[in-house]
């Protein structure tokens, strides 16, 4: 299967790119190395887990994040996505622990910045 996306906006409308959705042929190969990558990850970021159950759970999360990083790489090819210090966290744990912006409901009396000249 494939995902077809409009790659570019109005300034370059002629090109469309077709990318794999990441569930394809080489995902198994990727996961074969997951345990090795997890060992490197634990060493690099000094991660330890209290029990074997916790360790095994985190390894599962790590594998899921490898697949996620691969999907992100396909959707965001100009950046490099991969293992980060957050690779043993589920998306909801990541949101709960490391994000924290309240939704903005702009007050009616908020002072708007004056428009600045941008020519030259």
């Amino acid at each position, binding site marked *: 299967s494939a995902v077809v*996306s*409009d*790659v*570019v*906006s109005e*300034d*370059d409308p002629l*090109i469309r*790119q077709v990318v794999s959705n990441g569930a394809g042929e080489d995902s198994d190969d990727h996961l074969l190395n997951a345990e090795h990558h997890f060992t490197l990850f634990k060493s690099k*970021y000094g991660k330890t887990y209290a029990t074997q159950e916790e360790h095994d759970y985190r390894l599962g999360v790590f594998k899921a*994040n490898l697949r*996620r*990083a691969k999907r*992100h790489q396909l*959707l*965001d*090819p*100009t*950046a*490099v*996505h*991969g*293992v*980060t*210090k*957050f*690779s043993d*966290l589920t*998306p909801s744990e*990541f*949101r*709960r*622990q*490391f*994000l*924290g*912006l*309240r*939704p*903005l*409901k*702009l*007050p*009616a009396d*908020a*002072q*708007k*910045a004056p*428009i*600045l*000249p*941008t020519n030259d």
Partner: protein
Amino acid sequence: LPTDFDWRDHGAVTGVKDQGSCGSCWSFSTTGALEGAHYLSTGELVSLSEQQLVDCDHECDPQEYGACDSGCNGGLMTTAFEYTLKAGGLEREDDYPYTGNDRGACKFDKSKIAASVSNFSVISVNEDQIAANLVKHGPLAVGINAVFMQTYMKGVSCPYICGRHLDHGVLLVGYGSAGYAPIRFKEKPYWIIKNSWGENWGEEGYYKICRGRNVCGVDSMVSSVAALQTKSQ
């Protein structure tokens, strides 16, 4: 407007900080903007206290019941500017250091104020205006959708699809004109974002995201602050 601009080259940005496992990104975005504004008004770069905001800022949005700045549970930069304006200012990082939790009582000491807000405002969703305000007033507090940031390592992030629901507060410190070439080797511009997840994340703590189409909502919640012209003690 210059084609490339980076407040790090002009001495207005402190080192990358680390919020730890605490949803206090909003406080780091707030201090980063005020650190830059204070530098512009005094010529002095001072690292300011996020912990003061985490412990003491419980400012609420007057238009939404229960929407208040709440330590590790989240907050908003504009209400944090409002708190800072009312409190008189922020202490130095050294005087009120970051602990990474919100279990302590407020220990704000007014005699130790290092930087004060004179005014703050929100900037329209217009990339030229954002760039102009950045260059004129210093680093800007911005909200972003952080979904791609969990796996980001380096490069210019320019996802084809990214939600515009804002969930993370960061600091816009500059922009570049030609950072990446997605197709046809056509160079594209990008924003330079200071994050608060330590130097061992992203490009030494920084994130680059493409300009031009409000990617991940980066243009939609931008605020600027001005500092009073007072030297810290």
